[in-house]
């Protein structure tokens, strides 16, 4: 791989080619198609790991950049590049897509078309996580919505029509406000390039350009920028989602087939958090700082309220859906906490670095655990005939000891038990946030507590107690399923015990973000 080889574009293109291949092989039947899909998804994982090995974490800025003019009249350029954050997200998406394929492997309903859409979705994700020009990025941001939408719409449960529509409309509202905000930024600055906009924001040129070029009524540039920030914020807040913009999530996650939800929660939801880190934090640092209190409260709400809601759910899918909001809330908390406060003292900087490293770890761990949890739901639903109620089971550990054991590990990982993948992320976020905003961290602890409560409730109701007649004949995981589930479980332990794998790689990116927000 020479330095001129467009490695990032090739990665983005790989699943797309795979999708086309699957489509063409579709006539040859499901086995051939799914095998091709898995080969391409595995190749994507391998390629991501290869890029990871070639990536130099110590260097600041973007690596492996490719830049080509596209349409200068509207500021459109082909610009891709990688930093630690992008690379982490690439790894997350490729792994989650492969897991989702593993889950769909033996679901006869999900035929070639499904695998094709999943691969297209992967291309959308790769594009979103590597593009550095707003329009180029927006292309992938929007197009990744389409496969996700059809996966919900065509393979979902009985309420799928409504769920898919809700998902689509919510996201589109956010996308339009985001687009309008960026068009105004382009009008003021003449650039759609994230790197350029970040530099302009850091040097204060952006504010000056907005003051000079946008004259709306008698608003000063601060107000206009705040208005644009709100537009952009809405786009990411819907996608993540941030309470109160989460209305679409529970029905989308529970109506979609659990295999689809794996991709939605594992990879697609990361697009919102990625937007916070790549766009809002660097380009609107002052606005993030001004809106800090509000954002902190939103983060707390996103952590605490869904945790309570999850407790009240009687369906596994809905419970995990709310738990997913809660977990991404910690990311939001970490991101908001590092904004503002002018201090450049060593203690503050290290606290911010800890919080952001925690955010990155949390992104990774949530992807793996949430995807794995929905995988278990898929396995359970296939055996129980689509029954996923919390109170419908009991004593499963006697009928399916391996299943219960592995799902138990995942639940504890999700809970943040030390030694498992969830712990380092949450620990670092709290470690970083406490010195910055002790009250927010204290309130957020309530969410942590509730997570423990509802997950243990689940363990008790599903795995313990008397085994019902109805489920006595339930078969445990087959050998193939065990083999497919083994790698994610191993990753949960490995990263839990040795989080440096991730934190070392994102170190450069974290340092850079901390430097950016020293507003």
């Amino acid at each position: 791989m020479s330095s001129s080889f467009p490695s990032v574009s090739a990665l983005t293109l790989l699943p797309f080619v795979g999708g086309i291949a699957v489509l063409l092989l579709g006539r040859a039947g499901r086995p051939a198609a799914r095998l091709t899909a898995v080969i391409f998804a595995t190749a994507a994982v391998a390629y991501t790991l290869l890029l990871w090995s070639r990536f130099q974490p110590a260097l600041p800025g973007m690596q492996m950049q490719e830049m080509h003019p596209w349409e200068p009249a509207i500021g459109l350029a082909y610009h891709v590049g990688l930093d630690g954050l992008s690379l982490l997200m690439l790894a997350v998406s490729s792994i989650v897509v492969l897991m989702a394929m593993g889950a769909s492997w033996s679901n006869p309903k999900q035929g070639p078309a499904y695998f094709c859409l999943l691969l297209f979705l992967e291309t959308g994700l790769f594009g979103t996580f590597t593009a550095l020009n707003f329009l180029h990025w927006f292309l992938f941001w929007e197009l990744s919505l389409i496969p996700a939408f059809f996966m919900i719409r065509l393979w979902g449960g009985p309420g799928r029509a409504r769920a898919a529509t809700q998902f689509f409309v919510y996201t589109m509202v956010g996308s339009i406000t985001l687009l309008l905000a960026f068009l105004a930024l382009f009008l003021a600055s003449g650039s759609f390039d994230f790197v350029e906009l970040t530099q302009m924001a850091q040097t204060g040129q952006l504010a000056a350009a907005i003051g000079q070029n946008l004259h709306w009524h008698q608003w000063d540039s601060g107000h206009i920028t705040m208005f644009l920030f709100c537009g952009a914020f809405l786009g990411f807040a819907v996608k993540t989602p941030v309470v109160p913009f989460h209305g679409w999530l529970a029905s989308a996650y529970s109506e979609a087939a659990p295999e689809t939800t794996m991709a939605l929660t594992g990879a697609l939801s990361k697009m919102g958090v990625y937007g916070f880190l790549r766009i809002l934090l660097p380009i609107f640092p002052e606005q993030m700082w001004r809106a800090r209190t509000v954002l902190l409260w939103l983060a707390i709400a996103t952590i605490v309220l869904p945790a309570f809601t999850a407790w009240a759910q009687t369906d596994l899918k809905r419970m995990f859906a709310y738990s997913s909001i809660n977990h991404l809330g910690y990311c939001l908390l970490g991101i908001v906490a590092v904004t503002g406060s002018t201090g450049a003292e060593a203690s503050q900087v290290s606290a911010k670095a800890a919080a952001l490293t925690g955010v990155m770890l949390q992104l990774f761990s949530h992807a793996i655990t949430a995807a794995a949890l929905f995988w278990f739901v898929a396995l359970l639903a296939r055996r129980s005939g689509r029954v996923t109620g919390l109170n419908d089971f009991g004593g499963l550990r006697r009928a399916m000891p391996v299943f219960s054991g592995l799902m138990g590990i995942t639940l504890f990982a999700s809970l943040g038990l030390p030694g498992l993948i969830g712990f380092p992320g949450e620990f670092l976020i709290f470690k970083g946030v406490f010195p910055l905003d002790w009250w927010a961290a204290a309130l957020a602890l309530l969410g942590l507590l509730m997570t423990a409560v509802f997950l243990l409730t689940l363990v008790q109701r599903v795995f313990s107690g008397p085994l019902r007649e109805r489920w006595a004949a339930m078969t445990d995981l087959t050998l193939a399923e065990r083999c497919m589930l083994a790698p994610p479980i191993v990753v949960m332990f490995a990263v839990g015990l040795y989080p440096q794998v991730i934190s070392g790689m994102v170190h450069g990116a974290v340092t850079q973000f901390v430097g950016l927000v020293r507003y």
Partner: protein
Amino acid sequence: MLAWTIYLSLIGAVAVTLTPEKSPVVARLTALLTTIAGLGIAIAAVAHEPSGQMTTIVRVPWMPRLGIEYHLAADGISLVLVLLTGIAAVAGVLFSWNVERRVKDFFALYLLLIGAVYGVFLSFDLFLLFVFYELAIIPKYFLIAIWGSTRREYAAMKLVLYSFAGSALVLAGMVAAYVVSGERTLSLETLAHFPFPAHFQMWAFPLVFVGFAVLAGMWPFHTWAPTGHAAAPTAASMLLAGVVMKLGAYGCLRVAMMLFPRGLDPWGFHVLGFGSWQEVFAALAVIGIVYGASIALVQKDLKFVVGYSSVSHMGFVLLGLMTLNQIGLSGAVYQMFSHGIIAGLLFAVVGRMVYDRTHTRDLGELSRIPLGRLIPFAAVTFVLAFMASIGLPGFSGFIAELEVLIGSWRAFPWMAWIAGLGILIGIAFSWRALQATFFGEPTTTPEQVLPPITLPERLGACLLLASTIVLGLYPRVLMNLILPSLNGPLFEQLRRGDWR
């Protein structure tokens, strides 16, 4: 060379009438070859003349005593629209392969319409332009009245009356320009540089603009459009929405705005908060965007949904024109092209693929037929057309709407937000139509068999889809034609201080 697009179409129209009555295939093939030749010439012209500067093709005196010339020329904007006409014409023939009744007459009128449309886009003499503009109205009437469906006589008559009313305004403005300039010429090139008195432009501009905007579907003069589109046979709806509405928008830009740019200046006083024709027409455009989309949201007839969506999308063209800055205007021209392709595609799916097979356009009835399973090709095409129509990135509509939005951000920020709302409603109605047509929940599953999608339909759909995707991903093809024209000498008077 480019003039042959007109001549070939007219020759083709005659040739079709001479084909033997017994074999309609010959008539179809003649029409197809004629339109393909036109498209070939258009593509060659675009490839050959990438600079977008105005080039004269023919210029001979016609009525020397009046100073009227037969003057055909093309600049980048003309080329863009000629290219659109070429693509739409070929697709229209492919989608009317199943016309069985009076095939020869149908294609003769069809080619006459195409020839007239090419003529409008290539005329650089105002009188000649007007002649072609009027010539286009006649075949439209017969195409709808003879081969149409729902309330066809009413729709055809309404369309013609609206067109003539608009033409009357244009004619009045044209005569006034001739008299006031005193140059004894109707050459657009000369008049574009003639400094008409400001007070004259102040009333001549709205007169001519409204005259043309009627045909562009400007609210509140849009009502001919949905009824006309719904009644017309598929190819005619495709041309009507795809190309004929562009005649109006083209006239607005080429005649009203190019000749009377001072008419857009502030009045110096305010009426109901409006201080210039620019603001008035921009407001009408934005109302059209939101109104068209909202009405489309509650229609029961699938063709009416698409018909009203055209009103909404043409609102973007008019809004872009009224921004009076480079990016907004280029967006307006881009949207003319993009909407031409996408509307053609939508009408093709709705009229040809769905209606001709199921014989119903009622959303409720369609939702009970498992169309997605019966004709999957149509479902995929409609999904892609739906994505293009709502302006998803990667399709030409995105580039166009993006530019119009940037332009209106600069000119009237609050209108950008209302237009954004219009896009959202657009998503809602498109989704509703898609949902009912292809993703309905069939209550009963009658073992219905629909005729399979034919080869001409596949070719036509691929042609239109390829156009919108290529131009969505590679906008430079058209931008290189549009921008130099807008920055050329013809629009010198239109460019203002904040032209960017």
